[in-house]
């Protein structure tokens, strides 16, 4: 073992023979030894060099051995092992020496063996002290680290003792609950909900075996906080509780949106079925057994509603597929003028059956856009179809194409039933349909315009509506034109 080499010793004695003797004996054993002839120079040396072990003569002029020992204990708090060297070999003296903070006692006169034995014990003590210090400093830095981690946590953390009194609260918890932590804070200051207080008390009262976690949600000024209460185990006993607070506002809002959507979907799916069952129910009562034409009329309505339901399911599945990014697109340069012509051709028969005259206006052209063809169909066929459905017999449907800077502007104007400003405000919401006597016979899913808006936004396009009740509506689509193509063509 070479630990002596790492150990630095100070020998303080006013007798030169004594201090040099100690130095000589210990140097032989590999210690590095300094000497001091009195208390003052000892203190100077102690402040200059780092010592592990000090042999201190008790009786010295000026600052005596006790004073130096006290100084060491005060200044270096236990990091230097002190051995008092004295001729006063009594039990009382030994007690007195240890009372002043010395580790051991070496009686004058002493032999080299005496000195080495005491040194050996003192060295062991030195090692113990070093280990302890290392451990303490590790513990300290670990404590700091945990504290830092707790303070840096994104979750709010509250620790409660066995009496349900908060003993720790990290800054995030203070932020969430808008309360500063002090020693006076009680659980009831932090939470108003008696259920949370009760659950916390129950958890603290329970044994660790019946480990329970309780979750709560509290709403505060538009934020939703999730409160999770767990048992705090100390050793094998329940030592209190830990409360973890999370901000779950976004999840909560998404959940609400999803619930609202699902609830709307359920409502929209159930309504046509209710109407169909209702009609069948009427037929079953035998009310029209003598009027087969009336039964046919009701059955036809059932068919219409069934078909609309099917269309709704198809639209829902399409929206879902599109949201999931599973709709394949092939983006190509397309002439919107040609696209609209084809689309209007498709609706020709439907328009004619309502005696609606279709006017298509597009100066020159082409009107190039970069898009997926089926997306263009989804946008403009929806608008054309609406322009026919919500039109009046003998009305007009005008589709106009023009260019405004880098934007292709398509307007689809009908001379139909129109709508109120309030209806316009809700028009692009999923499942919104203008519902009144005039629209009651017109089937639709309530998803058409919501989808138009959604698809358009993927192309950085937008849509505007102008409408007047009983005189008609104009939908205007702004679609970015494929500039490069457009410039080349001109």
């Amino acid at each position, binding site marked *: 073992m070479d630990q002596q080499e790492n150990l630095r010793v100070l020998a303080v004695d006013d007798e030169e023979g004594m201090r040099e003797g100690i130095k000589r004996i210990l140097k032989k054993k590999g210690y590095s030894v300094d000497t001091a002839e009195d208390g003052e120079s000892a203190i100077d040396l102690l402040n200059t060099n780092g010592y592990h072990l000090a042999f201190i003569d008790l009786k010295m002029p000026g600052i005596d051995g006790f004073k130096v020992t006290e100084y060491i204990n005060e200044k270096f708090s236990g990091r230097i092992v002190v051995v008092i060297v004295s001729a006063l070999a009594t039990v009382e003296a030994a007690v007195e020496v240890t009372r002043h903070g010395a580790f051991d006692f070496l009686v004058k006169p002493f032999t080299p063996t005496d000195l080495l034995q005491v040194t050996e014990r003192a060295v062991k003590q030195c090692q113990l002290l070093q280990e302890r210090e290392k451990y303490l400093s590790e513990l300290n830095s670990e404590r700091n680290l945990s504290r830092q981690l707790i303070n840096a946590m994104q979750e709010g953390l509250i620790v409660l003792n066995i009496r349900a009194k908060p003993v720790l609260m990290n800054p995030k918890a203070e932020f969430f609950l808008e309360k500063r932590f002090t020693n006076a804070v009680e659980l009831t200051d932090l939470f108003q909900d008696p259920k949370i207080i009760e659950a916390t008390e129950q958890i603290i009262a329970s044994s660790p075996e019946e480990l329970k976690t309780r979750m709560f949600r509290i709403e505060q000024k538009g934020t939703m906080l999730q409160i999770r209460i767990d048992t705090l185990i100390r050793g094998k006993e329940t030592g209190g509780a830990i409360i973890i607070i999370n901000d779950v506002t976004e999840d909560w809002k998404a959940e609400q949106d999803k619930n609202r959507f699902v*609830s709307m979907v359920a*409502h929209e799916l159930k309504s046509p079925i209710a109407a169909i069952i*209702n009609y069948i*129910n*009427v037929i079953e*009562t035998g*009310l029209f057994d003598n009027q087969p034409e009336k039964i046919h009329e009701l059955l036809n309505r059932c068919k219409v509603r069934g078909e609309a339901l099917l269309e709704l399911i198809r639209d829902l599945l399409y929206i879902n597929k599109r949201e999931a990014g599973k709709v394949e697109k092939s983006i190509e340069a397309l002439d919107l003028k040609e696209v609209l012509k084809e689309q209007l051709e498709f609706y020709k028969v439907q328009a004619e059956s309502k005696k609606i005259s279709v006017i298509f206006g597009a100066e020159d052209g082409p009107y190039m856009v970069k898009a997926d063809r089926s997306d263009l169909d989804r946008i403009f066929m929806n608008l054309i179809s609406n322009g026919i459905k919500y039109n009046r017999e003998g009305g007009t449907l005008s589709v106009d194409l023009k260019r405004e800077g880098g934007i292709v502007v398509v307007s689809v104007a009908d001379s139909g039933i129109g709508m109120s400003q309030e209806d316009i405000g809700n028009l692009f919401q999923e499942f919104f349909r203008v*519902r009144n006597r005039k629209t009651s016979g017109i089937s639709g899913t309530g998803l058409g315009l919501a989808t138009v808006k959604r698809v358009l936004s993927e192309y950085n396009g937008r849509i505007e509506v102008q409408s007047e009740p009983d005189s008609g509506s104009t939908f205007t689509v702004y679609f970015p034109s494929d500039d490069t193509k457009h410039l080349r063509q001109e």
Partner: protein
Amino acid sequence: MILEGKVPNVLIVDDDVDLLEGQKLFLEDHGFTVITAISMKEGIEALDHFKPDIIIADLMMEHYDSGFVFCKKVKDNPAMSMVPIIMQTAAPKEIGFTFDPSNPKQKQWIKVDEVLTKPVPLEHLLGKIHKYLGEV
């Protein structure tokens, strides 16, 4: 309310024209005078000239809660506060739309006497109407 010798008046408010049609045909066949309204707005207008003995109202019409607003307007009118209202809705109970008209707390703001889930079998609806009109 016993309506001996009188043809009971029913107002049905629902935004589904087919549902209105089916229920109207059925109830008329059972001796009721039926007026239908396709929105809360129309329903309120109908009350100006039609005094129903019972009202059947949908929940989600112009707005998701139009039915409640309509029922509250009816029940808050002293002249009509005694008219029983049966609400029928396709709104799914599973997602939050749960009301129990027998719960006094809910009854405070949900001014309906009964909530039925669509589709409501016509015979069932008829039974409920008879119950509220006091004809057993």
